[in-house]
Every structure is written in structure tokens, then in C-alpha cells.
């Protein structure tokens, strides 16, 4: 996903000298060409995330279109108040990119597990929150954030949905990306973990259960229409996120359902169950360990079917 990111930023920077890319001393092997080509549009501010958001806000006050980069929780939780007070309140075009969403850096330990960022960033008024599942969504969301006003948050992931399944249609902020169609259940996922939803849908299909898979790449503003549609036209919803269940995708989807006075026949949220991981492992291992993989999705649907005999 980082390659899709830098290629898109590279193109945009070539056409707009007002675009600036700031990093808090991360991105080794990724940003060198950008720095060499656009030295006046690139800045490594050093390991200082609070300062980075402040500088980005100052630049954006002077009409620069700013992207800031770091990994995991560093560009979000570390400097949350700068994001809230300096960037969001002033409605500035500051776009925060965090590489290493969820358990991307599973082996590095708890400090590098980004499992609350979606919930926290979503709660900031005026923020646009995006976590792409495919490289196409990365490219399209960077373009969209560049044009969008206000604070943007882009969570990138080590994992992604296989490009063979990419939907190359129009991307717009606030619209879910339908990666697969089916009439039985709707799997709504966000970020790289959407690959587990695709995998589960493939397996269920072998048993004659057809699922729609929505990549809810824009968590905020959320695509209410597609959620209501899923409630009304499929037998139930499973949400999948590599994030705490508190306040994340599952919460957002359930809010839409209840706000619209609709209750799906079946509703299951899959994600971190309000805990930190004190063990390490690669992304797939940790998903499996915490019950966030395709097997969990399949099991929950099988259980519902056996109870309800549908």
C-alpha cells in the first residue's frame, strides 16, 4: 500500500507545488525519490509528532495542502490534541497517513499495534476517516483527500485484498466499495482485514451461501445507504475490523441501523474485544488468535443458520 501511496503523492506533487509531504522520521526507502524530485515540498521534521501536526497546521493556514506520515499510533494518538485543536477546529487541509494499521506490525509489540485509531479518529468532528482494502482504494483515497477540505485520516495496512478482486469503479468519500455480490449475508469490512471477508465469502459460497462483501473504506462519513440496503435485502450483517470493537466499524454500522429504526435479522461484530495484545505474532497469527479471521466469520454465520434453520 505504501507504494500506491507514494506513487500517487508523487504525481500530485508534480502538478501542485502547494502540496507538501511531512514525515516524522519514518518512511526509509519510500520517500527518497520524492525528496530528491521535490525538495521544497518534502520535510522530515524529526521524531516529533506534536510538532509535525503543529507545523502542518501552520502550513495549511497558509493554504498548503499537507500530508503527514508516520506509523502505527504515532501520528494519531501521540498528537491527538494537536489534531483536534490545531487542525480539526481550524478546518485545515491536513491529511494524516498512518502506515501499519491494526496488527501490521504484529511482531513489534503492543506499542505498534494500532487498534484504537479508527474509533478515536472517527470521534473528531469534521474528520474524514479512510482505511483502504485495495491498492486502488489507496490511490483513489489519496486523490480524494487531496481535494477534500478539512482533516483526513488514512490508515494503511500491510495486508490487502488481492488485486484480482479489485473494483476499479468510481471511488468517492462516503461510499462503500462492493467487492463481491451475494443475497444471503453482507460482510462489511474495513482495511486490509477485508481479505478475511473475501476468503470467508469464497468458502461460504462453496456451501451455497452467497455473501456481499463491502469494503467500507470510508469509515467517516459512512455509507448509510449501503448499510440500510444490507439490512433490508440480506439475512444479516457481519462487520470485520482490525480495531477495538468500541467505537469502530461495528459500532458505526450498528448506529446507522438503530438510527434508521432497522434491526438486521443477524448482526455480529468481529474485532478486538476491548483488550490489548501482550503477545506478538504476524498479522495472520494475531487475527486467528483473537478470533478475527475468516474462520470466525464462517463460524458465526454457520451458527446463525443452524439456530434459525434457514
Amino acid at each position: 500500500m505504501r507504494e500506491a501511496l507514494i506513487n500517487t503523492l508523487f504525481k500530485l506533487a508534480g502538478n501542485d507545488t502547494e502540496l507538501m509531504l511531512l514525515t516524522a522520521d519514518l518512511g526509509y526507502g519510500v520517500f527518497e525519490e520524492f525528496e530528491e524530485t521535490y525538495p521544497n515540498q518534502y520535510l522530515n521534521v524529526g521524531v516529533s509528532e506534536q510538532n509535525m501536526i503543529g507545523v502542518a497546521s501552520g502550513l495549511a493556514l497558509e493554504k498548503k495542502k499537507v500530508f503527514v506520515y508516520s506509523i502505527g499510533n504515532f501520528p494519531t494518538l501521540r498528537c491527538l490534541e494537536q489534531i483536534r485543536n490545531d487542525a480539526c477546529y481550524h478546518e485545515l487541509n491536513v491529511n494524516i497517513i498512518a502506515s501499519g494499521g491494526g496488527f501490521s506490525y504484529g511482531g513489534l509489540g503492543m506499542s505498534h499495534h494500532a487498534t484504537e485509531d479508527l474509533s478515536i479518529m472517527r470521534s473528531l468532528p469534521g474528520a474524514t476517516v479512510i482505511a483502504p482494502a485495495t491498492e486502488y482504494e489507496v490511490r483513489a483515497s489519496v486523490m480524494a483527500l487531496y481535494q477534500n477540505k478539512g482533516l483526513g485520516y488514512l490508515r494503511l495496512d500491510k495486508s490487502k485484498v488481492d488485486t484480482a478482486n479489485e473494483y476499479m469503479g468510481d471511488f468517492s468519500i462516503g461510499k462503500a466499495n462492493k467487492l463481491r455480490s451475494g443475497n444471503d449475508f453482507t460482510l462489511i469490512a474495513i482495511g486490509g482485514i477485508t481479505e478475511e471477508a473475501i476468503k470467508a465469502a469464497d468458502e461460504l459460497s462453496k456451501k451455497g451461501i452467497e455473501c456481499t462483501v463491502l469494503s467500507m473504506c470510508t469509515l467517516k462519513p459512512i455509507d448509510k445507504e449501503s448499510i440500510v440496503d444490507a439490512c433490508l435485502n440480506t439475512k444479516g450483517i457481519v462487520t470485520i475490523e482490525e480495531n477495538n470493537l468500541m467505537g469502530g466499524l461495528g459500532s458505526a454500522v450498528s448506529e446507522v441501523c438503530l438510527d434508521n429504526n432497522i434491526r438486521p435479522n443477524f448482526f455480529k461484530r468481529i474485532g478486538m474485544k476491548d483488550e490489548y495484545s501482550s503477545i506478538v505474532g504476524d498479522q495472520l497469527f494475531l487475527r486467528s488468535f483473537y478470533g478475527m479471521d475468516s474462520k470466525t466469520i464462517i463460524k458465526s454465520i454457520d451458527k446463525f443458520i443452524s439456530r434459525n434453520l434457514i
Partner: protein
Amino acid sequence: MKSATTEELAKKIRIHAVNMVNKGGSSHIGSILSIVDILAVLYGDVMNYKVENLKWKDRDRFILSKGHAGVGVYAVLAECGFFDIRDLDKHYQNGSVFSGHVSHKGVPGVEFSTGSLGHGLPVSSGIALAAKINNQEYKTYVLLSDGELNEGSNWESLLFSSHHGLNKLIAIIDRNRLQSMKPTEETLSLEPLVNKLEAFGWHVVEVDGHDHGELNSALLLNTDKPLMIVANTVKGKGVSFMENKIEWHYKTPKGKYFKQAIQDIIGKT
């Protein structure tokens, strides 16, 4: 500027400040009075701006990082014609935009909202960096409290600003030596402050923060480094019973205290 001199402007700001805090029942009068002379010299003499064109691209920028002294900024802006002086009566009233901590929304002339400490300097350095990139000549002024220097974000920014040679960035420290609960040196000592700031690569000058001549000269200095003005001030300056008294960080002057405060200010020339 409507006032003939910056001294006269300062007196008016002090009167507004005491009136506003009294009427609003708000706090921080000591911190506000501490920076009045700095604000008067900045807006009355030093800074370039056009009240009829708030977004004039060559205007000098000012950010109050110690947002709790926002009353002082509201008062100086009103006196300098940014908005109607009668609007000052709205401070701290229900439904008003004139909050205790300075906010830009709905208040002409306020460049940036603050309130949580340690935010103003990094943002100001971003504004100054934009000027450097765009080859613009405006200056960016930012006013910090001394207690605020406890916040680590300032030290990140001190490193950043000198590394990038932001020589049109001017930071002023309101060095009144008192913070929220005790003197700065008893809380988290800052001294030797000038040496520390110089070690961080800034051009540092120390002035009497109530001497308009000294302030004026310092604020207009041209250097090849970011400029730091350590302004030695008195918290509560201009009101005898408030000077150097921590309690006036919180208390609202009411009744006889209010009358005495106004009397003290009017009595001074």
C-alpha cells in the same frame, strides 16, 4: 490605531480587561495584565495589518499561545478597530464567541485559537516556514507564557525552528515567573533560560516587558536566526494588589477589588 501612543493603548486594554473579567466572572486577570504592554506595542506600533482586509497576504501574523490571556487580545483588537468595542461586553456570556481562551471563530483578527498550552509555537513555525517557502516577507509573532515552557512540544519546535533557520519567526516569552500554583523556579525550574534558548539555536534578547521602547526595538530586530524575546514581566502589572500574586491567576475582581483595580489603572500614566 485610535490611541495616540502605545502607553495610552495599554491603559485602555487594561481597563477593558478588568471590566471584561469582572462582568464575565472569569479568571486569569493576572496573566492578562502581564502581557498588555507587549500586545499594545505589537498592535499599536510594530505589526503590519489592515483592518479592512483581514486576509491581506503580507500582514504580520500573531498567535497567542497562552490562550488563557485571550481577553487581552480581544481588547487590543477592538481598540485597533477590528470589531466594535461594545462586543467586548459579550466575553464569557452565554452564547458568546468571546470565550475565556482565545478563539478565532467569529472574532475578526484572531489568527488562531489556543487554550491548551504548547500549541502556538509549532503552528507559528509552520506559518513562518510557509513564508520562507513562498518568499514572503511577513513576520510571525507568537507569545508564550513561561510556565508553558514545561510543555515538551515547545522544545520540539525550538529545535525545528532553528534547524530550518526561520528568521522571521519571533517568539516572546512572558517571563512573569509565576505559574498556576507556585513560582516557575519552584515548579519546574527554567533557569538559566536564556542560555537554554541560545543553546537551541535562537537569537535571544532579554527586555523589560513593560518598557515600550525596549519592546519596540526588540520586536523589530532582524537576525539570521529565529528570535526569542524573553520579556521580564510582572503578573498582574498595573493593579497594585494583583502584582506578583498567584491568586489572581484565578480570582475575579469584584466589589471593592474591582473599583480599586480600575482606580489603580486610571491613576497610572
